[in-house]
């Protein structure tokens, strides 16, 4: 055993200093945790109103209890089935295309060899991510208008009949998915591009020596190189099956497409805040939160298991 002058002593000293001072770490946590308790945990206490005939003047605990009345009423309401169906369809389509588009884009971009061109394209496709859905919605309402929108004018010049993108129930969903994917695919591709740039060039050289063409290189080197990221993001996206995109739909929908576009979140908003049906809206919101919690927690567990993912 080698002799290290003072090494052990200072390590011991450090340990005792750290133990003496841990209260400081707790003190740093305190203000933030108070905020978390007030703004994240107190609303969870407020979930009690899902079981009450809530009266704002009487508060969370003073209002008369109703038991499961709101939930029973909810199950009888035809609205419930409609909004759950809409939510799952819209969110499902968005997850599917929103998952594939960044991968395809990253793979194609990776084949581009002109640096400047590549950078230009990246600059363009990342941008919409930073535009709020308020502005994006305003732009889309303008350019997709049936009568004089730029898109329909363009289509008309090819002899295509005007399409009622935002007023036809079927087209509305297509528009939702397409515009959401278009807004986010570029940004979503960043992580794949990072993974692609991390692939060891020696693997490509080896593949070439083994006689692989561009396509085979993609199949046997590039794809396995991004697989772990794809698996991880794929698993984590399952938790979004009840998030159809409140911001987008709220800024685009209108009474013509309510039947096919009203989702849980928009329904909770209009039922709860506009019509002041606090108890019922909270009950529906609670059910959504619980299901989403189970899905997200499950997908995180899966991600930890399969992809060794750790958030903290």
């Amino acid at each position: 055993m080698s002799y290290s002058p003072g090494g052990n002593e200072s390590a011991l000293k450090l340990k005792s200093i750290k133990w003496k001072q841990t209260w400081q770490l707790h003190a740093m946590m305190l203000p933030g945790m108070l905020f978390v308790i007030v703004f994240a945990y107190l609303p969870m206490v407020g979930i009690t109103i899902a079981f009450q005939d809530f009266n704002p003047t009487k508060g969370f605990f003073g209002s008369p209890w109703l038991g499961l009345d709101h939930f029973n009423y909810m199950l009888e309401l035809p609205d419930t089935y409609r909004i759950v169906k809409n939510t799952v369809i819209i969110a499902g389509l968005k997850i599917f295309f929103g998952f594939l588009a960044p991968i395809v884009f990253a793979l194609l971009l990776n084949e581009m060899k002109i640096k400047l061109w590549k950078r230009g394209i990246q600059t363009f496709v990342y941008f919409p991510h930073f535009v709020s859905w308020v502005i994006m919605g305003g732009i889309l309402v303008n350019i997709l208008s049936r009568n004089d929108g730029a898109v329909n004018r363009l289509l008309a010049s090819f002899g295509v009949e005007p399409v009622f993108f935002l007023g036809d129930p079927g087209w509305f969903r297509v528009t939702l998915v397409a515009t959401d994917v278009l807004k986010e695919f570029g940004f979503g591709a960043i992580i794949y591009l990072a993974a692609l740039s991390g692939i060891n060039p020696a693997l490509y050289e080896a593949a070439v020596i083994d006689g692989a063409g561009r396509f085979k290189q993609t199949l046997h080197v590039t794809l396995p190189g991004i697989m772990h990221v794809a698996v991880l993001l794929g698993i984590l996206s399952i938790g979004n099956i009840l998030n159809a995109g409140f911001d987008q739909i709220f800024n685009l929908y209108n009474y013509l497409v309510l039947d096919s576009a009203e989702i849980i979140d928009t329904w909770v908003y209009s039922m709860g805040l506009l019509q002041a049906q606090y108890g019922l809206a909270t009950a529906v919101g609670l059910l959504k939160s619980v299901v989403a919690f189970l899905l997200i927690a499950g997908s995180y567990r899966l991600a930890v298991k399969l992809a060794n993912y750790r958030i903290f």
Partner: protein
Amino acid sequence: MRFAYSPGAIAFRMFNYGLLTAVALLCVLPLVHIFAVSLSSAEAVNGNEVGLWPVDFSLGAYRASFDAPFLSALNVTLQRITLGTVINLVFTFLLAYPLSKESDRFPYRNVYVWALVFTMLFSGGLIPTYILAKQLHLINTLWVLVLPSAVNVFYIVLLLNFFRQLPKEVEESALIDGASYFQSMYKIYLPLSKPVVATLLLFCVVTHWNAWFDGIMFINDTDKYPLQTYLQLLLQKSKSVLSLEDAKMAAEDAAKTSIYGAKMFLSLLPIIALYPFLQKHFTEGIVIGAVKG
């Protein structure tokens, strides 16, 4: 080394460049169109003459855009950005520093972690949050726009990961020399975190600039709307053009279209100005945040 010049490869390349260029244009042309509309005269917009270039160039829409409600909303947004960013950064530092210690040095660390993670997975929902804000008398105040989002777990994770990459030795020798954890955070970690602070700053500014729903939910005094909320309510009116019955109103609305366009573009201007930095820092942020482990 590559089989680049076979006819198939050339065809693929041309197709690839064409496709990606088209997709990239699809992402920005709508913005270019709105910009052109905002710079065109009302008549040209009414007559559907505007494509990607202003017709009958006019700055009238921009002059008309700076009306009292717009300026008031802009003012609210600037206030929430300033206050909100300071609050976000302070809380992010205060929470990320202790949490970057391993649990053998910071007992109960994992309790805090789980308390934070749980808030990402589950929330009280819209109505209880609204009622809470009401009972705390936060409705119609600037505070309601900055306090509920004061602690952001994503920012904490970002900073915590950055702290963990820094060498521990500096802090350890400072502690042996009698420094406290407070001093260590303030004098060692804070000065070292300049690059990640830039990223956090951008996140905070853009998030507060773009936030609109909290304004709809918690503010009902028109003087106190932040910019995006004001825009949201303004643009909602323009949606009436959608229905066929409102065709008559459509003509009237078209005259407003260039003003709407100008207001939208003005609201986009800070994002465009920050975009070169956003591209750099958000790219780093997302890579640090997501490809861990």
